[in-house]
C-alpha cells in the first residue's frame, strides 16, 4: 500500500515536470499575444501547484515580457502585463534565493530587465527616464553574473540596436553581440525545461542589423 502511495506521488511530480516541459515546448512556438497570455496562465498555474520550482514563474514572467514587446506600439495596454510579469519575476526570485546559482539568477535578471523595458514602452517620454535605467541595471547584473548568457547578450543587443546613438546606441555593437549570442546558443541544449530561448529573436534582430535600415 505504502509503495503504491509513493509511486503515485512520484508519478504526480513527474506529471508536473512533463506539464512544464510541454508548456516550454509550446513557448518555443508561441507567436501572438494570445499564445503568450495562455502560456503565462499555464506557467502561473504550474508555479502555484509546485510552490518550489522557480522555473514556472520565470517562464510566466517571460511570457508577460514578450507580450509587452509585442504590444510595444500600444502604450495603453501594456501596464497590466508589466505588473503581472514583475510579480511573477519576484516570485521566481524568492524561490531562487534559497538555492539559486549564478547562472539561474542571470537568467531571471535578464527577464526582469525585459519587464522593466516593457514599462518604458507605456510612454517612452516619461516612463523611459525611470524604467530605462532600472532595466539596464538588471541587465548589467545578469551579464556580471554570467557574461556568456546568450539571452542577456540578446537583450543587450536589442538595447544597443534601438537606443539612439546619443544615449549610447550602437548598431554595429548590436550585431557583434547577436553573433556571439547565436554562437553561445548553438552550444546549448535546445530543449527541456531549462531556459534555452533566444535563437529566433536573435536571428530576427540580426537580419535587421544586416539590412541597415
Amino acid at each position: 500500500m505504502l509503495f503504491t502511495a509513493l509511486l503515485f506521488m512520484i508519478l504526480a511530480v513527474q506529471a508536473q515536470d512533463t506539464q512544464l516541459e510541454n508548456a516550454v515546448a509550446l513557448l518555443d512556438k508561441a507567436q501572438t499575444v494570445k499564445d503568450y497570455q495562455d502560456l503565462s496562465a499555464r506557467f502561473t498555474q504550474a508555479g502555484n501547484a509546485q510552490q518550489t520550482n522557480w522555473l514556472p514563474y520565470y517562464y510566466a514572467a517571460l511570457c508577460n515580457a514578450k507580450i509587452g514587446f509585442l504590444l510595444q506600439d500600444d502604450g495603453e495596454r501594456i501596464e497590466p502585463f508589466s505588473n503581472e510579469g514583475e510579480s511573477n519575476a519576484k516570485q521566481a526570485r524568492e524561490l531562487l534565493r534559497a538555492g539559486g546559482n549564478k547562472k539561474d539568477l542571470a537568467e531571471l535578471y535578464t527577464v526582469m530587465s525585459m519587464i522593466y523595458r516593457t514599462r518604458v514602452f507605456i510612454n517612452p517620454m516619461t516612463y523611459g527616464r525611470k524604467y530605462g535605467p532600472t532595466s539596464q541595471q538588471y541587465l548589467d547584473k545578469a551579464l556580471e553574473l554570467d557574461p556568456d548568457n546568450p539571452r542577456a547578450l540578446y537583450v543587450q543587443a536589442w538595447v544597443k540596436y534601438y537606443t539612439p546613438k546619443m544615449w549610447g546606441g550602437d548598431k554595429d555593437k548590436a550585431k557583434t553581440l547577436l553573433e556571439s549570442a547565436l554562437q553561445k546558443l548553438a552550444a546549448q541544449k535546445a530543449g527541456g525545461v531549462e531556459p534555452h530561448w533566444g535563437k529566433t529573436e536573435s536571428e530576427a534582430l540580426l537580419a535587421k542589423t544586416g539590412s541597415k535600415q
Partner: protein
Amino acid sequence: MAARTLTILVLMLCGWCLCYPAHGQVKISGYITGKQQAAIPGTSVVLQGTAQGATTDSTGHFRFTTLQKGRQVLSISSIGYKTTEKPVVLVNDSITVNVTLHKDHKTLGEVVISAGAFEASDKAKGASLTPIDAVTVAGNGGDLANALRSLPGAQQVGEREGLFVRGGTGEETKQFVDGTWLKNPNFSSVPGVIQPARINPFLFKGILFSTGGYSAQYGQAMSSALILESIDLPDESSASLHIFPVNVGAGLQQLAKNKKSSYGINVDYGHLSLYNDIVPQRPDYFLGPEYGRGQANYRVKTGKTGMLKIYAAATFSNIGLRQPDIDSSHLKNSFRLRNRNLYANVSYRSMLGEDWQLRLASAYSYNQDDISLDLLNSGNEPLQLPGEVFDGKQRHTRTQTNFAQGRMVLSRLFPRNQALHLGAEHFYTADRYRSHDSLYPLTNQLTAAFAEGDIYLAAGLMVRAGLRFEHSSLLGRSTIAPRASLAYRFRDGGQLNLAYGMFYQQPENEYLFRQRDMDFSRADHYIVNYTKKAGNRLLRLEAYYKKYHRLPKYYPAISNAGSGDARGVELFWRDKKSIPQLDYWVTYTYLHTQRDYGNYPYALQPSFSTPHTVSLVVKRFFQDINLNLNMAYTFATGRPYYDIRLAGGDGKPQVHDQGTTRSYHNVNLSGAYLFSLFKKWKHKDFSGIGFGVNNIFGTRQVYGYRYSHDGLHKAAMLPPATRSYYIGIFMSFGTDRTEDFLNDNL
C-alpha cells in the same frame, strides 16, 4: 510515537490513493464571460492547489480533466478582471461551470472623469499627453499657456499672452499651482507684444488644462482652469547651463544623500537689444526689453507619506518702446514698463491614516508695475499736449498688488478611485492703483468652501458632483456654484463624458476701481465629450454650450448688464503609431460666440474670437543624427475688429466701422541637435544646440486694427517682427535634462 505518525501517514496516503484510481477522471468544462455575457478568451481556470487547469479559447470555453475528488475550489483569473474563486464538488463524470468575471478597474481601463479637460501627466500612457509633449510644441517661448494654444478650445491671440478659451477673455482663464492661484503667470503686459512666462514649465509633473466644466475645488475662472501640480523630489542631483544670445542662465538641483529632501536654485537673465539690432522690430525699443529671474526651491519628505514643498521666485522686467501715434503723424507714443514680482508657494500633503489625505497650501505674491505713457515729437522729445484725444496717452501709473492665499483640503479616499473632498480657502487681494496723484485702493477678502465627491455608480460609470460656495467682501455678495461631471466607459475603451457647472468670477479691477457696487459674473457650461484611446492613438470630440450672465459693461453706467453665449465643436486627434518615430496631432476648433460686454453697444462677436481654427503639431526625433525637430502649423479664420466710439450727445457707444482681418497662417519650426562634450566625465554632460524660427514663411499676420480718435484712420496691429529666431547652447550635468532644456528655451 514515530510508529503512530507513520500509521497516520500511511492511512492518509491510502485514503488519498484509494480515491485516486477508483472512479477515473472528472471532466470539468464551461465558459467564462464578462458582464454583458461576452466571452473572455485567455482566462486561466485552475483547480486550486494543483497544476490542473485550462485556458479558455476564443469563445470563452474551457475544458480539462482531473483526478481530484470532493470539495475543490476553481480559481479563475484573467488580466483586467478580478480573480474569482468558485467552490465545486467533484463527484460525477463531468460538471459544467459557467462563471461571470468582474472587471478589475485597478489594472485595466479605469473610467476617468475627463469632460472638458486635457490632462498631461507624467503617468500618461500611449498617446495621452505628457507635460513634455505640451511644452515641446514649436514656438511657444517656454510658456506653457502659449503651448496649450495648440490644443482645441483656445484662440490664437498673437498680441497678448494668456489663454482665450471658448469665447472667454484671457482673464477668464486662471492658473493654479498645487491648488493656489498663480496671479501673474506672465511678465506684465506690453501692448501688442506677447510676454514670456515667469515660471519654468518643467516644475510640473501634472498639467490639467480644463476648457470648461472643471472641479468645484477651483473657482474665479469663468472659462478655463490650468491646474498645475509641481514635481516632488528630483531623481538625481544635477547642474545646468544655457547660453542664448537673448538669455543666459544657470541652475543647480541638489538631492540629499538619503533622498529625502532636495533644494535647487536657478537664475537667468535676458536682454533683447542685441537680438533686436540683428532682427529689426516694428516697435522702437529704447529700454530693454530685459528680463531677470531667480528661483529657489526646497522639498522634503516628512514622515511616511508627507511631502512639503517650498518654491519662491523673484522676477523683473524693464521694457520701453515707441510707436507712431495713430492720431497725428508727427507724434509718437512712448510706453515704459518696470515690473517687479515676488512669488512664494508652500504646500504640504500627507496621509492621515489609511484613508484620509490632507493637503495644505499657501501662496503669496507681490507685483508692481510702473507704467509711463508719454507723447513724443518726431525727435523723440517728450511734450505735453492738452485735449481729450491725448489724455489717455500721457499718464504715469503705479499698480501694486499684494496677494495671499491659504487653502486646506481634506479627502477621504475610497476603493475604485472614489473620494470625498472637503475644502476651504481664503484669498486676500490688496490693489493700490496710482494714476497721477489719485490713489485707487481696492481690498478684497474672498472666502470659499467646497465639497466634492467622486462616486463610482456602476461598472465603468463614474460621477463627480460638487458644490462651491464663495463670498466676496468687496462685492458683499455670496454665490453657490453646483458642478457635475459624468463619465461612462464603453467596453471597447471609448469613453463618453458629460459635464455641467456654474462658474462665477468677479469683474476685473478696471471696473471695480470706479464702481464697487457690482455683482459676480457667471458662466454656465454644458459639455458632451467622447474620447477613445487605443494603439498609441487618441481621438477626442467635444461639443459645448456656454451661457454668460451679468458680464460687466461700461455703458450706460458701469454695471453687470452684459451677457453672452458661446457654442462650439472641437476635435483632437493624436497618432504616435502610423508613421514610425513620428508623433503628430491635429486639432480643429469651431466657435460661435457673441457677447455684450465692456464698451460693446450690443452683442458682438468679440475681437479675440474666430469661428475656425486648425492646428497641426508634428514632432520627430532623427536618431541617427541626434536631431530633434518640432513643427507647428496654425490656421485661423479672420477675427472681427470694430471702431466703437461714443456717439455725440447721449454718450452711447456706437459701432462706426467694422471688418474682419485676413485669415491667419503661422508655421513654427524648432529643433535641437544633441551631443555630449565630456563623455569621459563621471557625470557626462547632455548638451545641445537649440534653434527655432517662428512664422518661417513670413506670412503677413494681422491681429486687428486700431482706429484714430475720429475714425478716419485705421492701423493694423502686427506682430513686432515678421519672423522670430533663436539659437543657443544648453548643457546639463548629472541627470539627462536635455529635453527640458530644449523646451525651456524654445
